[in-house]
């Protein structure tokens, strides 16, 4: 109950923030909210079933291009574009998910790696998507509007994850993560569960891509199907705590802040430090912030050494 009230207050505060902040802060806000949504969307499959998708950047690209094609080429309204993008992404999730979700571990992760490269190659050879030059969307100067849309999407995706964490469906996903063979013989239609999780993940990812496309007004294959975006989703979700409700959101807020602060100084140094943060985080807090919180309360600073002792050779 206390938790629910705190969460509602946090959302109200975030919703009111743009009316007090300056233009630059709002832009950082939009970015941070969209990233948090992407991390949360990745969490639905990656955190709950343990299947690490590197194909979410493909869903992001489809959301981006769906929106851009509808608005720039067909002159349809924004919401139609969003729907088209989301439809394409969910369709892709089903078509590609059915065969490759049979693969496990590394094989699944890397099979999905190929997805965005392949889609980017196709998109950059189609006239309707502006080939490799890209598309320009109609300009709208309403950053506060974009901010609130991004916040609404983050809230929607987090509510979805909240439901998953409490539902029979979510229990099935978690069982798959813990032991897929056991989950199967206990009556879980693992393929169906994984595909539905991938579809949900694709849906939120595509909408985030669509909002970003309309906000940024220019898109091309390289930025829409950017694999490093997917890697950031994974890192943010893992950093916060995969398979938790709020971990990915908190994790991505923190990392976005760190990254932006670093990027303002020198970009090469920022990337370098980012890489080091990943390495150190994997070594010292392999289960993310959420587990770190529990660990610190239980055993204090020994938590870090414990992790190394547990996982070293």
């Amino acid at each position: 109950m206390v938790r629910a009230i705190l969460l509602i207050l946090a959302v109200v505060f975030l919703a009111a923030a743009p009316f007090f902040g300056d233009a630059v802060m709002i832009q950082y806000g939009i970015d941070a909210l969209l990233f948090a949504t992407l991390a949360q969307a990745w969490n639905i499959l990656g955190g709950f079933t343990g299947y690490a998708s590197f194909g979410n950047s493909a869903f992001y690209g489809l959301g981006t291009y769906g929106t851009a094609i509808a608005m720039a080429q067909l002159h349809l309204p924004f919401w139609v574009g969003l729907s088209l993008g989301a439809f394409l992404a969910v369709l892709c999730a089903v078509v590609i998910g059915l065969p490759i979700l049979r693969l496990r571990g590394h094989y699944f992760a890397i099979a999905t790696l190929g997805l965005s490269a392949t889609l980017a190659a196709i998109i950059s050879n189609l006239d309707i998507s502006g080939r490799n030059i890209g598309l320009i969307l109609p300009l709208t100067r309403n950053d506060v509007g974009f901010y609130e849309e991004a916040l609404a999407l983050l809230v929607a995706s987090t509510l979805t994850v909240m439901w998953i964490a409490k539902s029979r469906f979510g229990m099935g996903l978690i069982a798959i993560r813990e032991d897929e063979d056991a989950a199967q013989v206990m009556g879980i239609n693992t393929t169906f569960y994984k595909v539905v999780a991938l579809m949900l993940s694709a849906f939120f990812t595509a909408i985030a891509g669509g909002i970003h496309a309309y906000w940024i007004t220019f898109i091309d294959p390289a930025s829409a199907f950017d694999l490093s975006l997917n890697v950031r989703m994974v890192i943010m979700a893992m950093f916060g705590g995969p398979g938790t409700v709020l971990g990915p959101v908190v994790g991505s807020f923190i990392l976005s802040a760190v990254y932006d602060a670093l990027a303002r100084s020198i970009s090469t140094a920022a990337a370098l430090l980012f890489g080091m943060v990943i390495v150190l985080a994997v070594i010292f807090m392999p289960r993310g912030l959420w587990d770190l919180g529990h660990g610190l309360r239980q055993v204090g600073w020994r938590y870090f050494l414990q992790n190394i002792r547990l996982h070293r050779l």
Partner: protein
Amino acid sequence: MLFAQIMVNGLLLGGLYGLMALGMALVWGVLNIVNLAHGAVVMLGGYCVYFLFTGAGIDPFAALPIAMVVMFALGYLLQRYVLNLIIRSAQLNTLLITFGLDVVLTYLAQLAFSADFRAINPSYAGANLTWMGVTIPLVRLGAFVTALILAGLLWALLQRTRLGRAIRATAQNLVAARLYGVNPAQLYAVTFGLGAALAGAAGGLYGMVSQVTPYVGAALTAKSFVITIMGGLENPFGILLGGVFIGIAEALAAIYIGPTFTDAISFGLLLLILVARPARSLRGA
């Protein structure tokens, strides 16, 4: 004749790809680590040979063994003091940490060497053989032969030496390694070092047939991965064949489908292979 030329180009480049993938396959097969920093090590090997050639005037082929030693040391240290710390952690964590290392190595290279394109051009860089109307660039032929020799050496090391037997035993079972009187932490580091040394050699050759920048790593990692899956983890020559297959497929795609598709082609093939192979044989990797 065009077709024959494409096949030869693909074959020669494919040998190099195969060598590159050998290092990844060794580490994957024995340590169960998919090393996403593999391409970055290839890139560093390329710079190593480049500077030995331009700075010290050493012939690039003669510089390969030196680059291999340097990369072995780097690989040994990385495994011993970083990767060994998390080796029993969740599988995704080993992917993440090697990704982090990839980022670190890439941007360190950018700070140290700048983002310029570097090509290794020895005096014989333009020399060709012509045989039945097909042109064979000498450097590419040399790279291909070197790849074959190194694959043969790796095979001999794994099959014929005590170290090789210990490595193969470790791939089956960590406890077995202890029976050989080898400290597993040490053996893991040596294996990773060997993988890095092979990557370093591949990087040197890559710098001779193409160009090196700090950013080539990711694409090379991806390629190595695809080839490793095709070739299987067991047999070095299977990996070389996988490399040749990808090399030829890329060369054909560049001519007959369009150059924008070369990167997508290996991934397209990978998807096909993964999906077509029965799921059971891919389990538990």
